[in-house]
């Protein structure tokens, strides 16, 4: 379960998050919609402890993330998977090494066991054939799949997705969305995903929240958001329909 209460974050003179409160029940996926620069990534980074909020509270499975000592934060992060917008795969390592790097440093496993887990995660995202390839040899969509496999290698309870389908063609985007849904259904992970794609939100979300100018202006199911009369949301849906 994730509970965010009254979160504030400011960079220099610019307020990015201005009192954000959200709640994600265990085993559900919350999608945060918003335009570029609305503070979605900042919110996710605060949740992972990569950025320190100025004010407010973030609780993950009952543990307060804000101000958490480094050792406890490291323990919490092992229960967390983070899928980066551009996959953030380690260039100098092969796909196998990318996954093994995360796995072997947190689990004491025999080499065969390690290989089994790596293959299982890559099979889940349909990338087992790319085991010995390097990130530069993979397309954007393939990199995102491997990024997802790497995020799952420690079997996290919570997965954070930073724009998982941005920059992908509609077919690849739909495939990534299917993986997100499968992951929730098969492993029961709690997830928070940020996107500006309505299609992706509709496919993956149990609930949706709209972030605009540092505030959550609406939250509910996708249909409820779609029916919102808020001018920004109406415009957002109208423009997306045109595209």
């Amino acid at each position, binding site marked *: 379960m994730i509970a965010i209460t009254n979160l504030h974050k400011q960079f220099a003179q610019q307020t990015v998050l201005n009192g954000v409160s959200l709640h994600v029940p265990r085993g559900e996926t919350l999608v945060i919609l918003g335009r570029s620069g609305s503070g979605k990534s900042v919110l996710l980074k605060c949740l992972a402890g990569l950025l320190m909020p100025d004010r407010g509270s973030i609780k993950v499975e009952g543990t307060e993330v804000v101000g958490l000592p480094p050792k406890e934060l490291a323990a919490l992060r092992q229960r967390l998977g983070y899928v980066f*917008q551009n996959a*953030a795969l380690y*260039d100098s390592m092969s796909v196998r090494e990318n996954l093994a790097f995360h796995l072997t440093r947190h689990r004491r496993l025999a080499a065969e066991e390690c290989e089994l887990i790596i293959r299982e995660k890559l099979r889940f995202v349909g990338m087992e054939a790319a085991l010995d390839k390097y990130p530069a040899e993979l397309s954007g969509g393939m990199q995102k799949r491997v990024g997802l496999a790497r995020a799952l290698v420690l079997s996290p309870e919570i997965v954070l997705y930073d724009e998982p389908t941005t920059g992908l063609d509609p077919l690849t985007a739909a495939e990534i969305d299917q993986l997100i849904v499968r992951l929730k259904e098969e492993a029961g992970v709690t997830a928070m995903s940020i996107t500006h794609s309505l299609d992706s939100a509709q496919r993956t979300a149990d609930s949706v929240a709209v972030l605009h100018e540092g505030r959550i202006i609406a939250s509910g199911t996708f249909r409820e958001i779609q029916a919102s009369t808020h001018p920004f949301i109406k415009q957002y849906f109208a423009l997306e329909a045109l595209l």
Partner: protein
Amino acid sequence: MASIKRIFEDIARFIFFLGRFFASLIQAPQEKGEIARQMYEIGAKSILIVGVAGMAIGMVLAMQTSSTLARFGGQGLLPSMIAVAVLREIGPIITALVVSGRVGAGIGAELGSMRVTEQIDAMEVAALNPFRYLVVTRVLACTLMLPLLTVYANFLALLGGYFAMRFERNMSLQLYFDSALRFLNFSTVLPALGKTAVFGFIIGTLACFLGYRTSGGTAGVGRSAMIAVVLSTIMIIVADVVLVKLTILLFG
């Protein structure tokens, strides 16, 4: 005024960075495999450029000073003169400057691109301590490899001096080295070698500091690499002056 404030802020950040480095250094376990890999990257892959620079310096030194010494009838002192000049000063400083160009830029660009493509964040969020994995290993590798590269450059410079001398007078290699090493002792060679470890530390810490805090996309990566080379070059020259003075005070 704002830029002066920023310079002081950067100095404070660098001091904090150094503190974090030493704090990480005393924590076990270290990334031994990665340290060895970085020693190979920094050391073995610099062999060609350091070797060429060392050999050329020795040859040039011999050619330039031979005629001057001959004027005073002191040509027999040429091997000793080359040895003292190379081992005390020219070898260490040339090696450090060559390595700062190759390795400083490489580390600055590599860590910079890892920062802007969120690879460092990926390590952080997976609780993998990127500082220890990326920074401590590179700084240690630089500090350990520079003395070794300097010994190698010194040897090639002496050899270069010998080859240059062979054009003018017939001298055996053994006689050349006997003559070259005659006036040398540990208090001449060791402090000079010790200061190369300081040069390596300067290259490693500055390049890692600048690469690790890169921002501003690919332009920021280029900027970090460039500033890493410029700053480490300046700091090596300044440190050299200070360390030479200190060596003279301590060892005469």
